């Protein structure tokens, strides 16, 4: 074979190879939307009017109704399990599995009347005995549950036991009257006794037996959870036959899947992806001001008082002055790419009737107040030094913390920003060791100011991360327990919020704007409480 022939043959081979590669890619593109289960059965997920595909960052860590805790897990679990009461899209408490409740005279017993005709996943009747079992199982210390029900709800209401009066009536006995008990109980997922009594804890974590609108069809860990309509649930009509929860940790990948039309709804759109969705023809951005309060905590523990800044923030005048240094709307606009308003107190605005206005951005005033408090600028222009600790991956990937550090430095409070891995940061805050400044977001509610204030229910509460001590504020909780008159309760709460405002244990920032990406093919409105509802 001559040199020219060999060269020609090589070129033909190259062309054929490129052609075959293109054919292969086209074939692959043809099968790209198909998904195959372990059995080999091909399942179509998209372009189905009866199916919605939702992508969130994390898989459910358990579907045991007594043990669920994280927001992503709760989103799935709330579709599988009913609750006695729940929160409407407008933020009000409303009857769900129960049709009514009544407090006893001393307020320690709450009697719920269930709706007739409720059913478990197997079609058997759901009765008061099942409700009692749900409470008892969550409260049983031998189960070592750490989720929302056992870790927060049960101790918060002071659960002491339950009493089945008749198949549709159950009484919950608590240690003392709690004005927000119904709201707290609205988070208790109700399960049926029969299937769970025969399951080990391990089985219960992966084999939910539904009492809500959907039942589990498939769970491929770290990949997807497929729910299908529960035929025995007649209480409310859901919009979709099937809900597919896909686990997509990376924000840009979630956005790409949404824009490609492979998912219908994504949570936690990163700020840098918002414009891509807004400018697309296939999806839109939906935002809502959530109940999550983002603030900078002043850690007042003695261990921090050894430093000049740690000592300075023990003075409430300094804490008040620093409030004026931060331009919160600009932070939201520039770094979160979503407008927001500055928070005035720790209570969600719709429930805050204290009349306290958000602190304006006024760095000159901040400087004057610091001068007056006895912290003038030194020769180097620095008043004192602070360290701000924040998680690296939250709050605009650390950008919000960096901006706050710069705003404080601008008024002479030289602030070092220390961005930490989330697991380390969570440990520090839980142990009240973060600080002297730390950036944090904690959940509130739409239905009660008291719930929002319960982070500071006692001076030694686990959620009093700043170790704030204020006699008047914490003593007022006793006053609240003494009255059932809403007007009087409101007056006490307003006084507490004024005390909080003056004591300024938190540098108030904003209520977190939640950003969702929604396909144009679905109509869905976000809720302020982070709950994804499909009713």
């Amino acid at each position, binding site marked *: 074979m001559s040199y020219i022939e060999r060269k020609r043959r090589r070129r033909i081979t190259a062309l054929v190879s490129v052609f075959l590669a293109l054919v292969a*890619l*086209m074939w*692959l*593109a043809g*099968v*790209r*939307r*198909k*998904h*195959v289960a*372990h*059995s*080999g059965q*091909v399942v179509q997920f998209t372009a189905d009017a009866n199916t919605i595909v939702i992508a969130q960052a*994390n898989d459910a*860590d*358990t579907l045991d109704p007594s043990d669920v*805790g994280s927001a992503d897990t709760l989103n799935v679990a709330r579709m599988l399990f009913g609750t006695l009461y729940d929160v409407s899209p407008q933020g009000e408490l409303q009857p769900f599995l129960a049709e009514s409740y009544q407090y006893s005279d001393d307020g320690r017993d709450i009697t719920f009347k269930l709706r007739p005709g409720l059913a478990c996943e197997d079609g058997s009747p759901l009765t008061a005995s099942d409700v009692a079992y749900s409470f008892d199982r969550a409260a049983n*210390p031998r189960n*070592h549950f*750490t*989720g*929302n029900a*056992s*870790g*927060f709800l049960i*101790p*918060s209401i002071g659960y002491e036991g339950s009493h089945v009066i008749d198949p549709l009536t159950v009484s919950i006995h608590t240690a003392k009257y709690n004005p927000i008990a119904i709201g707290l109980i609205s988070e208790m997922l109700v399960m049926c006794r029969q299937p769970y009594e025969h399951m080990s*804890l*391990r089985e219960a*974590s992966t084999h939910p037996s539904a009492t809500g609108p959907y039942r589990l069809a498939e769970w*491929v*860990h*770290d*990949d*997807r959870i497929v729910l299908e309509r529960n035929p025995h649930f007649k209480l409310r009509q859901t919009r979709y036959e099937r809900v597919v929860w*896909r*686990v*997509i*940790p*990376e924000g*840009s*990948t979630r956005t*790409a*899947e949404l*824009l*490609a039309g*492979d998912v219908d709804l994504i949570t936690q759109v990163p700020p840098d992806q918002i414009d891509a969705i807004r400018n697309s023809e296939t999806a839109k951005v939906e935002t809502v001001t959530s109940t999550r309060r983002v603030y900078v905590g002043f850690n007042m523990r003695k261990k921090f008082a050894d430093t000049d800044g740690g000592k300075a923030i023990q003075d409430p005048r300094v804490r008040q002055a620093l409030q004026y240094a931060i331009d919160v709307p600009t932070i939201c606009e520039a770094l979160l790419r979503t407008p927001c308003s500055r928070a005035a107190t720790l209570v969600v605005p719709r429930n805050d009737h204290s009349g306290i206005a958000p602190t304006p951005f006024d760095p000159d005033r901040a400087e004057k107040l610091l001068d007056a408090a006895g912290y003038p600028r030194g020769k180097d222009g620095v008043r004192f030094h602070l360290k701000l600790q924040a998680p690296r991956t939250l709050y605009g990937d650390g950008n919000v913390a960096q901006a706050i550090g710069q705003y404080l430095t601008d008024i002479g409070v030289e602030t070092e920003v220390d961005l930490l*891995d*989330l*697991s*380390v940061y*969570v*440990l520090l805050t*839980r*142990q009240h*060791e973060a600080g002297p400044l730390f950036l944090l977001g904690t959940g509130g509610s739409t239905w009660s100011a008291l719930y929002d204030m319960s982070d500071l229910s006692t001076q030694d*509460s*686990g*959620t009093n991360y700043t170790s704030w001590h204020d006699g008047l504020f914490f003593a007022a909780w006793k006053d609240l327990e003494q009255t059932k008159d809403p007007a009087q309760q409101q007056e006490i709460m307003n006084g507490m919020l004024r005390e909080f405002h003056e004591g300024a244990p938190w540098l108030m920032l904003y209520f977190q704007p939640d950003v969702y990406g929604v396909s144009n093919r679905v109509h869905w409105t976000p809720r302020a409480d982070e709950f994804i509802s499909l009713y």
Partner: protein
Amino acid sequence: MIRFMIRRLLQSVLVIFGVTLVTFLAMHMGGDPTYLYVNEHASDAEIAATRAALGFDQPLPVQYLHFAEGILHGDMGTSLTYRTPAVDVVLRHFPATLELTLFALVVALVLAIPLGVMAAMRRGTPVDGGIMLFAMVGQSIPSFWLGIMLILAVGLGLRWLPISGRVPVLDPIFAGDIAGGIANIPHAIPYLIMPGMTIAFFTLARTTRLVRSSMLEVLSQDYVRTARSKGLSELRVVGYHAMRNAMLPVVTMLGLEMGFLLSGVVVVETIFSWPGVGRLVFNAINHRDIPLVQAAVILFSVTFLVLNLAVDLLYAQLDPRIRLHS
């Protein structure tokens, strides 16, 4: 040969011991992990009870000894997040990672060997320059960037390949359903291409350079000149005589590359939502799920050691000049 194997196995045990110790100490630095396993409203008494229940109240050496004793009994503890044995959780995710790394390795080798040979054969020509430029770019591009670019260009722009997800092949095979696993292959390939290419790219570039330099060295040997002077075709000279010897360093690198690919999956599995061990470890570290991290790291280490041992044995078989006892 047997003495060599025993010596290597003993070395492997020492390495695994070191890995478990380092992982254990790393996971216990930075504070008491108990707080991650109690509700934020938990009282001091509840925190203390949980600490005792999880064994975090014991001195670190005691905790480590318990852990080491468990390993010897095949028990690496219970995942604090999943509430199931950590080994089970890791093994459940392992087929996905194995699938991805094997695919990446095959892709890297299938492309790197011809490219490296071609560059060596065309040394100093634009073809050689182009391939070396490609190799340099391949070694310079961070995998997370390449992954995102592939998603945007191929997944979102051209819509040729799915952006994320997985169709299992090895899971049904390991479960005994070989036919089911094989039947899934055509559906699995579209999901494998982008993450597989992202992981393979660096290995592909590095192996291409290795094959090229190895081939250049072999092609200058006397026996190649002799083969040519005997009138053998170029295909036979290169493909039979030169390639066999040029592949020796590639085989040596194979075990290391597999380890590199396994470590590289952490980022890629997160970007492409691939439900493998890499992503599992990433989440476990974030949640301080110590038993899970340790189980995963030990599995990775054992895999890496076994592969290297296999490569050493293979190398000895391929090159008779190697004396194992030396």
